[in-house]
């Protein structure tokens, strides 16, 4: 049973939504610390540009496309949920999950190729950052997709529709992180 506390909204927005914003604030500082460190190191080591040459911009761009599109389906799911159409919302969330799966599969393929070519996490500190930052992001993608499956299953039965928006916001945040990772890791050469 949900406590009465959860249903109050003295701050003007629903509790779940408020909590999601705080989660994102804490995520900003985690990624901020990691990417800030990366930028400092990158600017200190001009030679890393030669390493960055070996990243595959096309795969990165394709994954950006996949994430942007999955964000679109997530926000459309939210739209459907707002109209009370749980089935449609669930369907669109499943599309988003397919996007997440595509992203991970492409990433796995990309990493496999790179590791086969000797670019491992310990071969150079650029690659250490490459795998750590993208890996941390990929973990967020996976976690978000799993949560989304639960939300979608509920939504399909018309339950907890407000969660569609919450998982969507989280998903857009994951998208934004990638929007910055893409130029940082792939384009800047």
């Amino acid at each position: 049973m949900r406590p009465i506390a959860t249903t109050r909204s003295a701050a003007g927005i629903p509790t779940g939504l408020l909590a999601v914003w705080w989660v994102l604030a804490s995520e900003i500082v985690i990624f901020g610390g990691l990417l800030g460190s990366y930028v400092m190191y990158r600017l200190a080591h001009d030679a890393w540009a030669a390493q960055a040459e070996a990243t595959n911009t096309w795969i990165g761009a394709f994954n950006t496309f996949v994430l942007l599109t999955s964000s679109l389906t997530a926000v459309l799911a939210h739209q459907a949920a707002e109209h009370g159409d749980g089935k449609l919302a669930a369907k669109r969330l499943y599309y988003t999950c397919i996007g997440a799966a595509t992203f991970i599969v492409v990433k796995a393929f990309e990493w496999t190729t790179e590791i086969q070519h000797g670019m491992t996490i310990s071969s150079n500190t650029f690659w250490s950052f490459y795998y750590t930052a993208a890996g941390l992001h990929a973990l967020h993608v996976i976690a978000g997709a799993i949560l989304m499956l639960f939300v979608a299953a509920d939504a399909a039965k018309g339950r907890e529709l407000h969660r569609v928006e919450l998982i969507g916001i989280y998903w857009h945040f994951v998208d934004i992180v990638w929007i910055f990772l893409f130029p940082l890791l792939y384009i800047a050469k």
Partner: protein
Amino acid sequence: MAEHATPHPAHAHEAHHEEGWVKKYLWSTDHKIICFQYMFTGMFMALIGGFFSYVFRMQTAFPGVEVPFYGLVSAAEYNGLITSHGSIMIFWVAMPVLIAAFGNYLIPLMIGADDMVFPKINRLSYQIFLLSVIVLLSSFFVEGGPFGGAWTAYPPLSASGAYNNTPLGSSLWLVAVALEFVAFLLGGINFITTAMNSRAPGMKLYDIPIVVWFIVIASILFMASVGPLIAGAVMLFFDQNIGTGFFDPARGGDPVLWQHLFWFFGHPEVYVVLLPAIGITAEIITTFSRKKLFGYKVVLNTAIATAVLSFTVWAHHQFIAGIDPRMAHIFTITTLLISVPIAEMMFVFIATLYGGSITLSTPMLWALAFIGEFLIGGVTGIFLGASGADIYFHDTYFVLAHFHYTFFPIAVIGTFAGVTYWFPKMFGKMMNETLGKLHFWITIIAFNFIFIPLFILGAAGDHRRIYDYQNFPQLAGPEYFFLREMATIALIVMLLAQVLFFVNVFISLRNGKKAGRNPFKSNTLEWQADSPPPHGNFAELPTVYRGPYEYSVPGRADDYWPQNAAS
């Protein structure tokens, strides 16, 4: 401790006694039970940390002695003991007790809610915390022993088993710390959301008790500062275990980066545990001096100013650690600036006493001692924040004594103040005042006899984390050892005095006078619930009509005016 849970007719679980116990105490989502889980785990860890301090203080004062109940201390063990003492006391005692336990207990009760907004996440938070405790304790038993590179874990020492000889211990330590952070992130989001969204009808921002404000500000501080260190922990873990070179200078890494990541968290962390302790003090001082808090908004503003400023001072821990000397100027200025709001906060508490009607009960004694002792910690910090003086004092026992004069008031005095004050509410029984005062005086006097000698030793050149000072001719004199022995003996006295507290708790639980709802005639909402409050806290959720500190309002018969009293 069967007293503190009122039977709940809704869930009549007559099936199995053990299952009921597990459900009630281990698997509960009730914020009060989670408070007890955090508090007892924290106190258990405090016993371990306290025992460790006894062992290594014995070695420092009487080098080579066979420590009773332990045995001989080797240099590696010594490092492991001091590291574990530091990390346990901060991460597994101060944090769980002050933020998690008091936050869990007080926030829903004081804002007039029936529980946290996310009870299951609250339970998960404790379970992750418990896991972190288990991981940390397991590091004592692995090959090589626990991590021994100080709680700051500076690489390259912490990054390589070749340097620290504790490859497993250092990784387990890091994992435990990271898990602990996750636990408090979950808990913190719960606290913040609850306090923001679930206040009782009528409770405006300036009607929130200071302790709730401060715990929330502390949670925000924690959340905003810990991120870079979580990222750093991942990087260090990879350095330790899969051969990356984030902090390895031979591969383009920079060990100084870790110091920044660590202290960007580490300094706000001081305020993370300080603010709840000050909040507890505010509640107690107003209650036992029957006074309105002097300048509620001033207190709040100083806390926010402190919180923001605390993000700009971190590098004063690194003045001589290899950072660019020009940066030291900026951080000296910001560090001295932060003394202003904190000093102002202390002035406010002192001013609150003026014109009061002070009862020196046990909780009040603890609260007053907090201010008196914390002032010492505060003023000695100026020596360390001023770059020129820090050249000498850095990494001496002066630093150690300074931060024990802040952390001891926070973690021990603040906790005892809170526990003795809310004990009647938590367990429905009054505590024994005689035993409580005896415990108070022995603890406080012994505490000063521990750390004043250490101030002198620090000024005389004792540097920290030294296994045997006989290796340093300048520090091997008998007058030095006299001071070290004095501190050690005082420590033993203080640790033994804690038995009094546990005896007091035991006696009070068995034979204590029954506490009514509001034994101290206090205003805040938790005193309007039953003692102990049942699951769901209030029979009828309260409505708030006024601020929390309306004591001795002229023209009223009572000298208190509960927040939820309509008139």
